[in-house]
């Protein structure tokens, strides 16, 4: 049975370029290395941003998904790339954050003049570009095996970033991260094997037409979602995340926390809404939401008890990811005509976007604070505000989003989730969102209180931070705040290109 065919649309070639451009840059750095790493990266970064914006514009202009069929081979035999409203949004988000991180990292990962090539700059920039291509492939892929390759691509770009400084703890964190990621991949692949055995296709559109409830489908989807949960660090599979994200250099931590853990969540979203037989399984949705609730409450409490700033932010990531998993029961119980017209769906996506911006900004701010003070012990942050005032301000603004206070993207997102939860009478979720907000406020204000305190006697700044780095951090934080001014209703753009299902 052939599913409705894919056809390459007018701007389709843009999708290919979005995936291939970073790879070209990566290969160029690898081959030419030798001092040019940063320069090459700064050609690719704006180029990629333009491509992402062009794709989003094309999706908005045509009001339909942009598609490219590779080599003209029709799926399921061949592979198609497709950008709908959601993937275009995430691609623009990725490009923006990577550009800001690139600006932040500019100069810190450059090769010293007395060396022909240094390890850290070469590795940092090649992996950053690899990561970008992998993320774009995850957002665009329509074939479950293609997406497996994309996930592995992402893992191989992300893991070495964790141990860039080569210290024992970070190597250990990287190894643990790799093992968790590999288990996740194998579970995902097991599910894919079962689906192929049952339906003879791994194309999402094809599966959507054919999939029905039977043991093979249920086991396959269960295995895939569990595997992706390990990669997205949902409680109780989150143990790898805090040491890995805290150990990486600030620029890498920002990307890992803001974007990399969102990719497996995005795939869970797609499996749930685009592949699984509809309506989804109530019990599974409730279980995912409960794991989300545990993530929010436990990891917020653990974040509150951290001594180190970066570990605190990393635990906060696990907690904030928990919110994303609340979406499933909220959307299922909603009476909107389609999932993407429900307030829960929009709230979930907005939480994803605003957390990405806020968390990237927070990790970068923490990096600058640590550079200026020479340490990141929370109890000793006194005087940070005089050393790096802009970074502390950015930290505070980003904190608004995590706490869910207005005006911020996090506020709107959490309000939408809260509305959806009250509408559908999911009182536990209401309670979790409120408790999570209070806990987030406690850990953010704990840091701010210290950072704003008067410096101790003998306080001196260790490093002078160039203005462009602080501005990159502030830019991200302001974007997270600006998201707070979006209207409180489902956005049509996020529904573009999604096939109408009840």
């Amino acid at each position: 049975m052939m599913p409705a065919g894919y056809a390459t649309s007018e701007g389709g070639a843009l999708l290919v370029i979005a995936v291939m451009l970073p790879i070209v840059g990566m290969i160029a750095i690898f081959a030419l290395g030798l001092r040019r790493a940063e320069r090459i990266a700064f050609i690719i970064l704006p180029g990629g941003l333009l491509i992402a914006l062009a794709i989003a514009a094309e999706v908005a202009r045509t009001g339909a998904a942009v598609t490219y069929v590779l080599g003209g081979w029709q799926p399921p035999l061949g592979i198609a790339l497709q950008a709908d409203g959601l993937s275009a949004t995430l691609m623009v988000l990725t490009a923006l954050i990577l550009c800001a991180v690139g600006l932040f990292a500019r100069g810190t990962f450059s090769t010293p003049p007395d060396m022909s090539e240094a390890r850290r700059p070469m590795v940092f920039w090649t992996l950053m570009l690899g990561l970008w291509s992998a993320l774009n492939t995850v957002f665009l892929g329509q074939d479950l095996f293609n997406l497996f390759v994309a996930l592995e691509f992402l893992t191989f770009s992300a893991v070495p970033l964790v141990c860039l400084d080569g210290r024992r703890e970070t190597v250990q964190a990287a190894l643990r991260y790799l093992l968790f990621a590999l288990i996740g991949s194998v579970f995902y692949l097991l599910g894919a094997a079962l689906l192929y055995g049952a339906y003879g296709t791994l194309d999402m559109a094809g599966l959507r037409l054919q999939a029905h409830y039977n043991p093979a489908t249920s086991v396959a989807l269960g295995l895939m979602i569990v595997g992706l949960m390990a990669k997205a660090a949902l409680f109780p599979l989150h143990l790898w995340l805090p040491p890995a994200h805290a150990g990486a250099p600030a620029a890498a931590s920002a990307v890992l926390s803001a974007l990399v853990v969102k990719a497996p969540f995005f795939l869970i979203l797609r499996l749930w809404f685009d592949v699984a037989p509809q309506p989804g399984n109530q019990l599974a949705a409730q279980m995912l939401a409960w794991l989300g609730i545990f993530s929010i409450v436990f990891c917020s409490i653990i974040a509150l008890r951290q001594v180190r700033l970066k570990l605190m932010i990393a635990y906060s990531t696990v907690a904030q990811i928990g919110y994303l998993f609340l979406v499933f029961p909220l959307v299922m119980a909603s009476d909107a005509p389609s999932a993407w017209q429900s307030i829960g769906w929009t709230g979930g996506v907005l939480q994803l976007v605003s957390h990405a911006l806020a968390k990237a900004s927070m990790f970068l701010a923490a990096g600058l604070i640590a550079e200026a003070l020479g340490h990141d012990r929370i109890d000793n942050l006194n005087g940070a505000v005089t050393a790096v005032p802009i970074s502390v301000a950015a930290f505070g603004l980003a904190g608004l989003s995590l706490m869910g206070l207005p005006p911020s993207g996090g506020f709107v997102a959490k309000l939408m989730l809260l509305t959806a939860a009250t509408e559908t009478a999911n009182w536990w979720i209401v309670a979790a969102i409120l408790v999570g907000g209070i806990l987030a406020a406690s850990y953010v204000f704990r840091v701010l209180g210290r950072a704003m305190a008067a410096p101790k006697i003998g306080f001196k700044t260790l490093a002078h931070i160039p203005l462009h780095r602080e501005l990159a951090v502030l830019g991200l934080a302001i974007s997270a705040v600006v998201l707070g001014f979006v209207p409180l209703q489902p956005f049509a753009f996020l529904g573009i290109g999604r096939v109408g299902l009840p």
Partner: protein
Amino acid sequence: MIGTATVYGLCASGLVAIGLYGLVLHPTPLRKVIAFNLLGSGTFVLFGVAARRGGAAGFLADPVPQAMVITGIVVAFASTALAVALLLRLQETGASSIETTPPEQQDNGAS
């Protein structure tokens, strides 16, 4: 009626279980990596079973899942290489197991 493919399908289930057991329970990273490879092999055989059952149109087996397995084997090798490099480096820097103090108590200094 049990056919050849089914026999290997059961073999795949067994390999997955054995590999997963080793992966979860072995405390040392090298043994975890070996177990991961067994688990991966089981997964690949499952694709092979689907391929063998899908032989049609003059092909003894469906080439699509077979090609996927080849890609998968190469990726698994790359993972193993990275994991081995990491665990050797871990030894050089002084630790010998990935099970140490919980992350909250670790000394993650400023970067």
